[in-house]
């Protein structure tokens, strides 16, 4: 592997890792605050991508009417913001329907409702929109720059940059705001903290909403990078991001993002060095090894007696 291809792979890994990282953040927050698996999250990513598709298509159609001049970058920004906003309501709906009624009962039951909501989202999408694959509108013309022997495209740079920005924004939100403090308190103890006047339901909804908004961002970025959408796109990437979220450690925002990027790096480099069909075997074996020696992830606390199913 020459140095040029190495850097090329690094760039690709950063792009793939940013999808994983953004989705893993949602898993990690829900897991950190409520100690639940949100198995519907991969499908919320899919819903986010579709909402992004409809919003951007609508905005493009609106712009073509010529009433207001909408440059493409503005459409993109509006798409990201609107889709994040709308998808956060999908996440809150999932929490309201599948998780809130089960608060206090077995955690695994909530995992099952999440799984089932995921199937409903996939099939509902298929039933509503048909099996036709959607093509995400191209909002930014891909431009390639040559940095020496390495080819860099503007979309890749943008995706990686925005993902890091969103991760840091979330980190700051959790660290610095009152809401974030409430979330951290809830992660510390969700039995006693509500007694101190912190609204449990609001915080839970906020957690799901924030995670879903980030998943929507990931969905749009995915649509920009690979402009074909299908109802089952969220399954595999969602489960992988779930693994990444746990690898990062319970409730650790930066850990989840780091693990997401790490997963991206592992997958890209395994595919680069070995035959690409071996990608999953080797990638997951590495994760298995890491978890063998660090079962609580990178930044998680080692063992908690509260962890019960």
């Amino acid at each position, binding site marked *: 592997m020459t140095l040029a291809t190495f850097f090329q792979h690094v760039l690709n890994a950063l792009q793939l890792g940013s999808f994983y990282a953004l989705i893993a953040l949602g898993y990690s927050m829900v897991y950190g605050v409520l100690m639940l698996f949100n198995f519907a999250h991969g499908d919320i990513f899919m819903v986010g991508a579709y909402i992004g598709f409809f919003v951007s298509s609508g905005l493009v159609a609106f712009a073509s009417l010529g009433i207001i001049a909408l440059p493409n970058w503005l459409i993109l920004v509006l798409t990201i913001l609107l889709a994040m906003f709308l998808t956060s309501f999908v996440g809150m709906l999932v929490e309201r329907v599948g998780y809130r009624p089960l608060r206090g009962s077995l955690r*695994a*039951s909530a995992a099952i409702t999440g799984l089932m909501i995921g199937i409903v989202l996939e099939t509902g999408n298929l039933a509503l929109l048909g099996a036709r694959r959607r093509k995400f509108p191209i909002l930014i013309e891909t431009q390639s720059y040559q940095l020496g022997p390495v080819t860099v495209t503007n979309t890749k740079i943008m995706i990686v940059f925005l993902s890091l920005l969103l991760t840091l924004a979330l980190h700051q939100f959790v660290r610095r705001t009152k809401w974030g403090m409430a979330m951290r308190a809830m992660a510390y103890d969700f039995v006693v903290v509500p007694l101190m006047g912190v609204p449990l339901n609001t915080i839970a909804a906020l957690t799901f909403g924030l995670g879903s908004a980030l998943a929507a961002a990931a969905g749009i970025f995915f649509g920009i990078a690979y402009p074909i959408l299908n109802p089952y796109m969220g399954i595999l990437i969602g489960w992988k991001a779930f693994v990444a979220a746990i690898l990062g450690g319970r409730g650790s925002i930066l850990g989840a993002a780091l693990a997401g990027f790490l997963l991206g790096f592992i997958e890209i480099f395994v595919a680069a060095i070995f035959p690409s069909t071996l990608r999953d*075997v080797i990638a997951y074996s590495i994760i298995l090894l890491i978890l063998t020696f660090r079962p609580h992830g990178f930044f998680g606390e080692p063992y908690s007696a509260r962890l019960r199913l």
Partner: protein
Amino acid sequence: MEVREGTAPPTETIARKTLLAKVRYFGRAQYKSQLSQIPLLGWLWGALMAMVIEQAVGYPLARALGLPGIPGLFGLRIMLTKPALIPSAAAYVLLVYVLPTLVVARLSAPLANRVAKQLLDRFPLWVSLIVHLGLFYATMHLWGDINAYRMLFLSFIMISIILTLSLNLVNGYMGEFSCSHPGFMALGAYGASILTVLLFVNDDVFGAPLLPPALGPFLFPLALIGGGLLAAVGALVVAIPSFRTRGDYLAIISLAFMFIVKSLIENLEIFGGPRGFMNQPKWANLPTMFVWMAICLWMIYNFTRSTIGKAMCAVRDDEIAAGAMTVNTRRTKMVTFLFAAFWAGVAGGLFAHVIGYINPGTFGVYKLSEVLAMVYLGGLNSIVGSITGAVGLQLLMEVLRPLQLFKWIVIPILLIVLMIRRPTGLIAFTEINIKDLLQPRRP
């Protein structure tokens, strides 16, 4: 819950009780004298006679009632495809199944009571159990014998029961969350298939059979056990890292393991890779499946009542306390997990030899959702619950098949509602006492 005999409880207490209690109450009030004296043996005998009647006159009767043929699943599938035929199907069910069963069971009740009593009094429990199981199997066989569709349906139900039970051991009795059952199933399916194809089948890849194929059906159990052991060895890969501590690591590690197995098989070209592996002899016929299911039920039932099974429940309730009470928690968890994986592997081996073809895509996330749904639908910590869950979900999937795509909207929504209403599943943390079940009923 239990309504006392003779005295009818006041109505307002009934209103608060569950649906089951209501049904039980009305059943007792109205038909107590008639039906409550029929023992299980009588019911089975009646059902067997109903199946004999179906064998004899089922087809002409169905034609006479205007049905295209004998209804596949008690007319349940016709409900959605041809609603106009519902009355005919209902009439068929009434005439062929319900009435003969009731009449024969009621008429033979005195004799059945005597036989049941003699069986329990003179012989050990297992004799009576085997007689009941034999009658049940005969009923099922006659029912399934009508067409290939029913046969396949029964086979899938039995595989699901084994799979659900073994997952219930880990997720219910042990209180962990394992996601790797499709992986174990794949290991068992491939392991058993390799053994049978290598030894008994003239295959393009593996060459001529190493043993005479006539021996095959007799050595088939060994192949299944081999597949199960392979799955148990695979489970070791999950168990060693994840049972050092408690928590959700098992969920992640087992998930990773499932992906590894699937991906590994896809890369093994000698076993067909992603195209799948075929040519398995279809040796998993109904009697074989039934025997394996019965063995599985028996072993898991005994396992949960054994010392290690009780240790397992103690670990679930409080691992630290269990450890303080000299339970070797790690060993308990490992043994349980490996045992569960073994049965998942056997289920996989049976699955491969029912269809005669497997591919790695079968053992993916959808299979996982299905098995998890069966376990949590039926109920944790309950063998009866697992059977209910497996049969219920399979039946639901078959009945709603005419809805096609919308099936996968209706079923998950049903499951969500059910989980919210009963978070531990339909029948959880209870077990039926087999001896009570086999007792004769006195009027």
